[in-house]
């Protein structure tokens, strides 16, 4: 058994470079499907920006990444777990990884789009809202689905709804701070870390206060301003 384990580790380690090469061989666009064909009737809009974080999150979930993620999730299941529970855990795991990847993808898209659109006279809301629009809808819907799927696994309704709300609050607050920072060419990391820590700290002291303040802070970050 020891020999098998050692051999597996060495094989995995030696194959790392080959796997990295294989992963780099394909562009991200390979994993997101064909783009809609342009027609000359199409009016210019920033609509396509809203698909960018989704595309990034889907591209991250390429088979090379998903298989490792699923494997780790499945081996955490105790022996004797029913197939139904295992499937439920796997789906929840995949959805959680998608919402996490999407949260990160919005930040990456914001940084990328800000650099790219910096020389244009675009206004803040015209920049921020298209990037967030579809990602917000995905986060809300998937957080509710995850919460519902956790119920058969023994979670309490109030607890999962609270966690979903807290997650959404932290994600939206982080996005708006980051978008604002990128738009103004400012570093926003410290502001994000401070805001998240303050929100969680307030939640520890009095449940609901941190979420309320974070929601106000989110709206404040979305106020109209010139770059």
């Amino acid at each position: 058994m020891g020999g098998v384990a050692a051999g597996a580790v060495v094989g995995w380690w030696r194959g790392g470079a080959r796997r990295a090469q294989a992963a780099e061989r394909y562009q991200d666009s390979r994993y997101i499907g064909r783009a809609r064909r342009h027609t000359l009737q199409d009016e210019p809009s920033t609509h396509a920006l809203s698909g960018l974080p989704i595309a990034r999150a889907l591209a991250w979930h390429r088979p090379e990444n998903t298989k490792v993620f699923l494997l780790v999730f499945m081996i955490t299941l105790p022996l004797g777990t029913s197939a139904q529970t295992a499937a439920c855990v796997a789906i929840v795991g995949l959805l959680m990884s998608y919402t996490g990847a999407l949260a990160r993808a919005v930040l990456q898209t914001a940084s990328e789009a800000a650099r790219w659109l910096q020389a244009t006279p675009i206004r803040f809301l015209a920049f921020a809202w298209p990037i967030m629009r579809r990602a917000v809808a995905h986060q809300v819907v998937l957080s509710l689905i995850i919460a519902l799927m956790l119920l058969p696994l023994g979670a309490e309704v109030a607890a999962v709804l609270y966690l979903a709300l807290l997650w959404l609050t932290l994600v939206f607050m982080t996005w708006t701070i980051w978008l604002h920072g990128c738009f103004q060419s400012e570093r926003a990391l410290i502001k994000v870390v401070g805001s998240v820590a303050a929100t969680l700290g307030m939640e520890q002291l009095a449940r609901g206060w941190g979420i309320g303040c974070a929601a106000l802070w989110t709206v404040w970050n979305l106020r109209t301003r010139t770059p």
Partner: protein
Amino acid sequence: MNTLEIQDLYAGYGVQPVLRGINLHIEAGTWFCLLGPNGVGKSTLVHCLSGRLEVRQGSIRICGHALQTELLAAKSRLGVACAPEQLPGLLTGWQCLEIYASAKGLTQIDPAVLELAEALSVVGYLDRYVDTYSLGTRQKVCVLLALLGDPGLIVLDEAFNGLDPRSAMLLKQHLSARLAAQRCSILLATHSLDIVEHYGDVAALLLDGRIAQAWTAVELGALRARGGNALEQALSVASGVMMA
């Protein structure tokens, strides 16, 4: 009329100063070539013009609008070709054009830009994702974006890198036609003396964050008339490099 006026410009990254007192003006209809070795501040100047880097001291006016106080008006007259690696890889070329046009407040993509795209043989690629493009195709899309909205000042940073000779020639002809119509002026940061020699109206050498030498249209004409490597020699002398 000046499309670009820069007065006593200081800028840098962190505590590191890069630009130290730049004074520059570009008249409409002028092709201005900004020369200089790597790392002297050419791209930093482009970043200041695009609003990516904050100006520490001095002023920038684009088509009469101050960048610091009339930001939207100044940017609406500006066309900057971004670096090819800045194009979002998961958008198609059309989507890039649509987003950029919308960001510039346009209701349609300029027919002149579409004609240029056709001439540069890039239209066939526009329905594909940018991350499948070659460097040359990305470069072409970047230039097309800069030309959207008929800008008064076109800023190109090494925009001919990666272009095939035919595309480079077509692009130079297109830009020359825009200049001839006095519709704009061009600021080109480049290492290519060939472009300076054949297309540049005015040139300047940037060294250590300062304009070390400027050549007027008459002076450039005289260097062209001397032929040979007169321009290269003039640049070497201005840079303090001895030629064999």
